[in-house]
């Protein structure tokens, strides 16, 4: 036998008691892949209307120690962010992902909010990003990597503030996959984020902020 690849595939086929799959069989498997058929999706979120899904998202996110502020319009976001930071006794300083989704927010109306646009560095204490979707089922944010959304901005700052539009809330992960496929190609990274970083590795005691953000704050903008 030749290389490891052929040997492993050969050993698999020997175990399964057959040779390489024939044309019809592999076509059936190709069709299964292409269909993206959903398996069972829990009714928990799927059975709700959109307002119910938004409410479930908030409840589930709060359950895992995220905080949520609801605002009526994009114009209210800078104030909500500034209030959150001051409420946590944090400096009014942020690194902001260069995400065009965040461009309709009138940041200049809050001149005291010190914002640097770009990629996060180790000494950035707080960061602000947009997101791609939010999953009501478990209070999970879905973020994609790309030119406008560096992955490290989701992990390096101690405080992560996410601006989420109500229209981005979907019932289940499967709805997120559908939206992603509509968008086109797979990004390098899809991050599903459910609450702030945590560990239970010492005596099973829950500690927030293991390596990623200690705080996750979601500003939810009504846009429906």
């Amino acid at each position, binding site marked *: 036998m030749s290389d490891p690849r052929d040997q492993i595939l050969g050993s698999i086929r020997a175990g399964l008691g057959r040779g390489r799959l024939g044309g019809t069989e592999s076509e059936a498997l190709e069709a299964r892949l292409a269909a993206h058929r959903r398996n069972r999706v829990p009714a928990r979120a799927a059975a709700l209307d959109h307002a119910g899904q938004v409410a479930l998202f908030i409840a589930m996110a709060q359950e895992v120690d995220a905080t949520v502020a609801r605002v009526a319009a994009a114009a209210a976001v800078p104030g909500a962010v500034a209030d959150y930071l001051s409420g946590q006794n944090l400096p009014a300083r942020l690194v902001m992902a260069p995400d065009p989704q965040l461009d309709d927010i009138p940041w200049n109306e809050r001149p005291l909010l010190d914002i640097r646009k770009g990629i996060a560095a180790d000494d950035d204490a707080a960061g602000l990003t947009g997101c791609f979707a939010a999953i009501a089922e478990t209070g999970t944010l879905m973020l994609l990597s790309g030119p406008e959304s560096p992955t490290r901005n989701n992990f390096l700052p101690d405080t992560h503030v996410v601006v989420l539009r109500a229209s981005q809330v979907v019932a289940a992960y499967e709805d997120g996959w559908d939206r992603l496929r509509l968008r086109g190609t797979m990004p390098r990274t899809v991050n599903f984020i459910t609450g702030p970083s945590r*560990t239970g590795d010492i005596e099973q005691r829950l500690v927030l902020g293991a390596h990623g953000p200690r705080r996750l704050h979601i500003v939810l903008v009504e846009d429906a």
Partner: protein
Amino acid sequence: MQATSRAFKANAHRALGNPELQRAMGMMRTGFPERRAVAIARLPEFEALRDDGIAIKNHVLAHLDFYLETFEKNVIAQGGKVHWCRTAQEARETVLALCREHGARTVTKGKSMIGEEIAINEFLEANAITPVETDLGEYIVQIRHETPSHIIAPAVHLVKEQVAESFRAAHRDLPHDRALDEARVLCDEARSVLRRQFLAADVGITGANFLVAETGSSIIVTNEGNGDLTQTLPKAHIVLASLEKIVPTLEDATTLLRLLARSATGQEFSTYTTVSTGPRRAADPDGPAAYHVVLLDNGRSALLGGEFQDMLRCIRCAACLNHCPVYGAVGGHAYGWVYSGPMGAVLTPTLIGIEEAGQLPNASTFCGRCESVCPMRIPLPKMMRQWREREFAKKLSPKAQRWGLALWAYVAKRPTLYRAASAAASRVLGFMGGARGRFRSLPLASGWTDMRDMPAPEGKSFMTLWAERRKPAPRQAATP
């Protein structure tokens, strides 16, 4: 790593007499099962999802060659590379070659059981590359020169005082008299020490909970975010995965993810679920420039079509460890190799041989909790019995046990002899037990009587009672 599975009995004995370990295991035995029960009660579809998950895994195993080839094709299409490795040695050498190719001096690591299986850390160290574990539990066992004692909670065998002591010994640049009495403080210290390592690393190595054929992606779940910093900051991301981790589509991975965290930690969903596909794109401001998947067989393909095939459904959630009375009493190190608990008792003999690991499938009470909580419904007790049968057939079990069994089998196959012998034995033992009705010691059974008394047989045997019942009923009771 050098297996000490042969010494399970001695290891277990030591573990039972270790007060710190017993304190730590006490916290484990209640925590995980309670949280799992709560999470499952909240999801009415959980049982049906288990069946769906099993169907997905069985479908994959029946078409494993097709899905692996599809996965490879899609990894390449995204600009990554798959390295097929038959053995642990091939995998180690592949990882080393990749690290050298990327000029690595420091390598950060997310938690990977395949990394433990191929003992990658020792190998990199021997070749002048420094591996740094970044999962808090893994980091703790690494600085203590130990191995993980649990597949998802590596330091579950330790209490916080032991962690504090290890941090004082390892972090010598910090004031020696600093307070380290809370998990919170210990975690913060590890965070700041490891943050420097994340920023300095040249290569990041993670495991994979799933590989997705459709997209050529690898998926990891973590709660700390260490796996994300590990794979985002360095120049190259190496994924260590065994070949049964493959699933067809993102939808299939999603079904299994719904089972994984609930079964493991009792969370609805892990904090971070990360899907990684190829290296960074041309316009991306960050992410690794290279993406490699080291795909390990190490004896798994040989399980296909055999009596242990179902073990390849395992998603490494550790529910079987968390609910096992034996694991809960002795901890993971007693098992003497990488995998412990019921899944380890079945998997370890397939990977290092029944000669080496024969004690493990014997370390079971057959209470069946492992199978009942396994999200993949793997028949773990049945498989342990199959290993015991193989061990017996290979004449590996102790002589006294084999002769005893042979004698018993001879008598049991002859009902008249069996009844006569058991009636005689029960009369003799009943008489010897006397008024106390118990034995403090018995010949050939000191293993039992050292720890507790043996009750003496009382009254008639089941067969005698049965025979009496089948006799015609006494007349006075026959008619109303």
